[in-house]
């Protein structure tokens, strides 16, 4: 790890000792997911054993008597459950096996849906079984996503239960230029996609206006909590902010004049806690990706003087004249 001049003093990620270069995570954010995963693993084994030994009873229990899947198919599902369960319980990184549970859930939902179409099924039991599997699917997906994130430096859960996203980018400019640009928060809309305007309201205070989910405008006040010229800026929102978060950006020279390593860490506590955040991510909103794209634009602006665009904004919804020139 040739990262001379870069200190790793963040809460979620530290080097084990001085100079040994071994990276690890700490914080207890993942323990809960691991307990949940092992519970789900045992559940898989129990269900798998039942499906293998008593496929007809299982089919009856969920309302698929006679017309449902053949005992052989139910036994295959049982084998799948056993494999997933053993995998989750024995693997050092069980996330892949958790995702296989999610895939199995989707398959089960499809089988149950086909049961509704068949005659001779017990609809009430089938509906209850479908609801149960759907619920388990959500739990599985959230658990799998959290276990996946556990190995990532870019997403962490802090000891206080806040979500921390972290990204780095190397910019081919000296630290002082980057610091000056960032410190003038009025520049934020140039590279932060969701931010529309920032006003300076005091020496350390700023007022932010941004586009929230669903196009809703959100506004908040923030203050700079630490300011080390050319090195670091930290900020946090004031108490009445609707979107409470804090952030820190560090500017550290890369070795041998290779520009500046910019590290941003942002902590925020979404309403409903980390579970909400994980659910949002499953629906496609990943804050670490948003941060990555914002930093890419920051780099573009500082290196080239502009933010790169490939097409006019309206181009993606263009309609092509039928027929054309031929």
């Amino acid at each position, binding site marked *: 790890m040739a990262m001379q001049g870069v200190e790793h003093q963040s809460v979620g990620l530290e080097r084990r000792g001085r100079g040994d270069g071994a990276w690890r995570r700490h914080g207890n954010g993942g323990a809960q997911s691991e307990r949940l995963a092992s519970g789900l693993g045992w559940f898989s084994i129990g269900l798998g054993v039942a499906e293998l030994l008593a496929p007809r009873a299982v089919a009856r229990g969920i309302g698929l008597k006679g017309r449902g899947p053949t005992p052989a198919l139910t036994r295959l599902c049982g084998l799948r459950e056993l494999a997933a369960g053993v995998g989750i319980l024995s693997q050092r990184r069980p996330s892949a096996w958790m995702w296989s549970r999610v895939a199995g859930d989707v398959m089960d939902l499809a089988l149950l849906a086909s049961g509704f179409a068949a005659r001779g099924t017990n609809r009430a039991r089938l509906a209850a079984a479908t609801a149960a599997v759907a619920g388990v699917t959500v739990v599985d997906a959230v658990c799998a996503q959290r276990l996946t994130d556990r190995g990532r430096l870019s997403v962490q859960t802090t000891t206080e239960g806040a979500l921390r996203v972290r990204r780095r980018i190397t910019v081919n400019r000296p630290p002082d230029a980057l610091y000056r640009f960032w410190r003038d928060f009025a520049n934020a809309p140039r590279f932060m996609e969701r931010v529309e305007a920032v006003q300076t309201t005091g020496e350390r205070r700023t007022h932010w206006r941004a586009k929230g989910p669903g196009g809703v405008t959100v506004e908040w006040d923030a203050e700079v909590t630490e300011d080390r010229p050319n090195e670091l800026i930290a900020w946090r929102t004031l108490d009445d902010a609707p979107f409470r978060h804090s952030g820190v950006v560090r500017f550290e020279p890369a070795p041998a004049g290779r520009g500046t390593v910019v590290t941003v860490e942002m902590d925020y506590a979404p309403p409903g806690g980390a579970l909400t955040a994980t659910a949002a991510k499953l629906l496609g909103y990943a804050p670490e990706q948003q941060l*990555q794209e914002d930093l890419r634009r920051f780099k573009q602006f500082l290196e080239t003087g*502009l933010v790169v665009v*490939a097409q006019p904004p309206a181009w993606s919804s263009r309609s*092509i*004249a039928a027929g*054309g020139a*031929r």
Partner: protein
Amino acid sequence: MRATCWMGKTDVQVQQVPEPKILNERDAIVRISSTAICGSDLHLYNGFVPTMKSGDILGHEFMGEIVETGSAVKNLKAGDRVVVPFPISCGACAQCRRSLFSLCENTNPNAWMAEKLWGYSPAGIYGYSHLTGGYPGGQSEYARVPFADVNPLKIPAGMSDEQVLFLSDILPTGYMGAEMCNIQPGDTLAVWGCGPVGQFAIKSAKLLGAERVIAIDRFPYRLAVARERAGATDTLNYEEIDLYDALKDMTGGRGPDACIDAVGLEAHLPGALGAYDRIKQATGLESDRPHALREAIMACRNGGTVSIIGVYGGFIDKFPIGSLMNRSLTIRAGQCHVQRYMKPLLERIQKGEIDPSFVITHRLPLDEAARGYDMFVNKYDDCLKVVLKP
């Protein structure tokens, strides 16, 4: 304006589309005088490159006249004739400063897509899927050229379009393919693929001092061009002879010092292994058919170099890693860093060392682009290179 649009697999149409506008202060608009269909466009045409959208404008080999410049473009003015390099570079990032222009860190606005498929993103490219930015291409009447202050090459008066058009891609690409072989006196090179890029790789290998250049293809007309125009010393038709056996015999039992893969992801191969790759590609189990690359590796001499300039998109299998590792081979590869080669190659053209127009077999009006694609992909009428005139 009229533009050649990708409408779906093996379906291109010339359509009416809005004219491009200046979007940034470092942009310019070029009125295109000549543009060409590239062999790599055929990979898009055949549907092997993901993230194409119906209506995307194709084309990354084009030249023309500047009609408008953004406020920050000081070195070009309306009326200048320019050739536009296919990778878009910013000129300022660490990779551009190292002259690795096709790896520009700033010009792919869809870098996240490329990161998912390839780990990190290369530069943006005109008309070459959304994976490399989704920039509208140049098989059209006009094109927007971003970072026009650092990319286009001004063409001196008196040179024809056909002499300089291929500075946009295929001539530098072939040249870089040969340059990556680090040719020493007495070297023998073998070049897989006698399409336009292969022809320029052969020509460049001769210019760079190769003793012997062996051209490999299956179409007699392409092998004839390689021998008669590009300067190949030998030609081999892989449908007629055992390549490995022939190359071993021709090189004193040692193998070529360097092998250039100018074929890429749609290699053809008769027989069972060829069928195997076709089935895997068709069912999505591998994205690329890498047969030329496998052969190039197996045929190369111990300690030699395999230079990959044919385009690959994703994943392959049955890759002879054991041959590569145990025999100390060097693999070099890359989308061409065109900006690095444009001026020196322009000088070689001016000195008469190379006349790139020898690859052109068809000149068509832009409106006949669809016919051009059909001809090029199916090798009708001994088609080697199609130039379109808007």
